[in-house]
C-alpha cells in the first residue's frame, strides 16, 4: 500500500535543536496517532526527515531535496525566521505547501505557507500589559541578534510607550553567545534596576542568559525575565532554581487543563517517556499535522491548491483550545496565555485572553487598550 509522504525539516543538532527537537516530536506523535487510526483514507503518513543542523542555508537546500529528489510537496519545519526565509522561495517556486509551526515577527504572507505560531498582536500586547500592571513600567530589552528579536522589540517598545512605560536598555547578542558574554549586560541590569526584563534571546544562549542572571543575584520573583520564546524545554535546562518567577506569554503551556491537552500529554509520555520538552511550538506542530491530515481526508490527494482550500477556515480542537486557520492571511487564530514559573520549574498560568485572537500579521502599531487583548486572571493555575 502506498503511503502519503511528508517532509520534516527540524534540526536535532546545533543551537536551536532543543526547541526544534520538540517540534519534531510533536509532528512524529501526530503522525503516529493518525496512522494508528488507519492513516488517511486507508493509507499511512510516512515522514521523511532531514537534519539541517541549525545551519540557516541547509534549510533551503534540504527543502529543495525533499521536493525534487523525494517528490514530496508537503513540508513541516523551521524555527528561526532566517531559516523560513530560505525555504520560502523554494516552496513558492515548486508550488509546495509549507507548514511553519513557530511564532514569528509578522509582515509576511505566502499562499504556500500555513503559519501555525503567534504573530506579535497575539502575544506582545497581552504580555506588555501584564508586565506594566504587575511589575512596573521600566523594562530592559535583551535579544539575540536577528530579525525576530529586533522586530519584536520594536512592537514591545511601542506598546510600552503607549502605556507610559520606558525602555531602560537594549542589547543584542550573537546566537552562539556563551555564559561569559552575558556578564556585562547582567551587571548593567543590576545597576539600572529595571522592573522587568524582556528577553528575546533564543536557543542555547537563552539558557546561558537566565543562568547568568541568577548567578549575579537576579531574582525572577522580584524582577522577572519575560519572554515569548522561553518554553518548558529551556526552563527544564535552566533548572527550577534559576528560572523561578520568570514569565512567558504563549498560546500553550503544558499545564493547560483541558481534556484535549490531557490526551495529548498522555500520548506524548507513552511515546517519548516524558513530557519535559513539550512546548508551545511542539503543540503547534502537533496541531498542524493533524489539521493537514483532516484536510487530506477531504481532498484525497496531495495537491497544494486543493489542500489550501480545505485548510483555510478549518478549525481544530487543539491541546491549547479551539484554533482556526484564518482564510484572510493563512495564519492561525490562537489562544493567548501568560504564565509564571513556580518553584518546581513548572509554568503556572496567571492570565489569559478570553477568546482566540485573530492573527494580524501586518499590524504596525498594536494598540494597548484594544479590548480583545485584555487578559483575565486565572484561578487554580491552568486553563
Amino acid at each position, binding site marked *: 500500500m502506498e503511503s502519503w509522504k511528508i517532509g520534516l525539516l527540524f534540526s536535532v543538532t546545533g543551537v536551536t535543536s532543543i526547541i526544534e527537537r520538540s517540534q519534531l516530536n510533536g509532528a512524529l506523535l501526530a503522525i503516529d496517532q493518525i496512522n494508528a487510526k488507519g492513516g488517511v483514507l486507508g493509507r499511512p503518513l510516512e515522514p521523511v526527515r532531514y537534519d539541517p543542523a541549525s545551519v540557516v542555508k541547509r534549510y533551503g537546500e534540504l527543502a529543495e531535496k525533499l521536493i525534487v529528489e523525494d517528490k514530496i510537496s508537503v513540508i513541516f519545519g523551521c524555527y528561526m525566521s532566517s531559516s523560513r526565509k530560505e525555504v520560502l522561495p523554494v516552496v513558492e517556486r515548486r508550488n509546495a505547501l509549507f507548514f511553519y509551526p513557530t511564532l514569528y515577527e509578522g509582515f509576511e504572507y505566502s499562499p504556500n505557507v500555513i503559519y501555525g505560531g503567534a504573530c506579535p498582536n497575539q502575544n506582545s500586547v497581552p504580555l506588555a500589559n501584564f508586565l506594566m500592571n504587575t511589575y512596573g513600567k521600566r523594562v530592559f530589552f535583551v535579544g539575540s541578534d536577528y530579525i525576530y528579536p529586533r522586530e519584536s522589540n520594536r512592537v514591545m517598545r511601542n506598546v510600552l510607550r503607549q502605556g507610559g512605560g520606558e525602555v531602560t536598555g537594549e542589547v543584542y547578542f550573537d546566537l552562539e553567545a556563551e555564559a561569559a558574554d552575558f556578564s556585562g549586560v547582567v551587571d548593567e541590569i543590576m545597576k539600572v534596576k529595571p522592573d522587568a526584563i524582556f528577553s528575546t534571546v533564543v536557543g542555547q544562549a537563552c539558557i546561558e542568559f537566565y543562568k547568568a542572571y541568577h548567578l549575579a543575584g537576579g531574582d525572577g520573583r522580584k524582577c522577572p525575565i519575560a519572554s515569548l520564546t522561553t518554553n518548558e524545554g529551556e526552563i527544564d535546562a535552566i533548572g527550577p532554581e534559576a528560572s523561578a518567577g520568570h514569565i512567558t506569554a504563549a498560546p500553550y503551556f503544558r499545564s493547560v487543563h483541558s481534556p484535549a491537552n490531557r490526551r495529548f500529554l498522555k500520548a506524548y509520555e507513552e511515546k517519548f517517556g516524558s513530557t519535559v520538552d513539550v512546548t508551545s511550538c511542539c503543540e503547534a506542530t502537533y496541531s498542524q499535522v493533524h489539521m493537514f491530515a483532516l484536510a487530506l481526508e477531504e481532498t484525497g490527494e496531495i495537491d497544494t491548491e486543493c489542500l489550501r482550500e480545505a485548510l483555510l477556515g478549518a478549525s481544530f480542537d487543539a491541546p491549547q483550545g479551539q484554533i482556526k486557520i484564518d482564510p484572510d492571511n493563512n495564519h492561525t487564530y490562537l489562544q493567548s496565555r501568560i504564565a509564571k514559573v513556580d518553584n518546581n520549574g513548572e509554568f503556572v498560568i496567571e492570565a489569559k485572553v478570553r477568546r482566540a485572537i485573530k492573527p*494580524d500579521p501586518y499590524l504596525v502599531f498594536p494598540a494597548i487598550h484594544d479590548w480583545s487583548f485584555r487578559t483575565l486572571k486565572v484561578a487554580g493555575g491552568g486553563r
Partner: protein
Amino acid sequence: MSDPIQDLRDLHALVVHPRDRSADELMQQVNRIGCNFDHMWPVPKTLPEKFDLVFVDVTDQNAQRLKSFIGSSPKSPSVVAIIGYENPSVLDLIFEIGAHSVLMKPVRAAGVLSSMLMARRFQQEQLHFEKDLTKLREKLDNVQKVNDAKFILMRHRGITERQAYDLIRKQAMAKRATTTEIAQSIINAESILSNMGDT
C-alpha cells in the same frame, strides 16, 4: 512630513485593474495590510477625492486618459503602476503619468507593502520639495524687489544701502505692510515718475 508606515491603515486605496487573478491577489494583500480599498474597472473618467493611493493597470492604456484620470482628484494621490511588460514604451508611459512606484504582473503578495510605502514616501517628498521650491522662489523674488527699491532710494536721496533699507522698514512698520509691499510701491512710483519725465 508624516510617517507613511505609521499612517498605513488610514489610507484609502483604489485598485483600477480588470477583475482577474492579479487583481484578486492585490486586493487580498491590501486587505491583509489593513487598508480601506475599492475596485474600479474600466478606468473611470474621474478619481474621487477620498483616495490617497491608486493602483492602476497601465497595460494597453493611453497616457492622456490616465493622466486626466489621475489629475482629476484635487488631492494628487500616490500612484502605483501595474505593468505587464517591461519594454521601453511601457516604461515611458509610467514616467509620463508620473507613477511613484511599480508592481509587475502577475502580482504576488510579497512586494505590495513595499511598493505602497515607496509610492507614499516618494510622493510626499515630492510635494514637500515642491512646497519648498515655491517658498524659495517667492523669497528670492522678494529679496530682488527690496534690492531694486533700495537702489532707487539710494539714487534719489544719495544715502547708503543701510539707510535705504531702514527707510523701507520704517515705512513698512508705519503703514503696517510688508517690506516687499513697500518695495513694490517704490518700484511702481519710480516707473511712473520716470515715464512722466519721458513725455
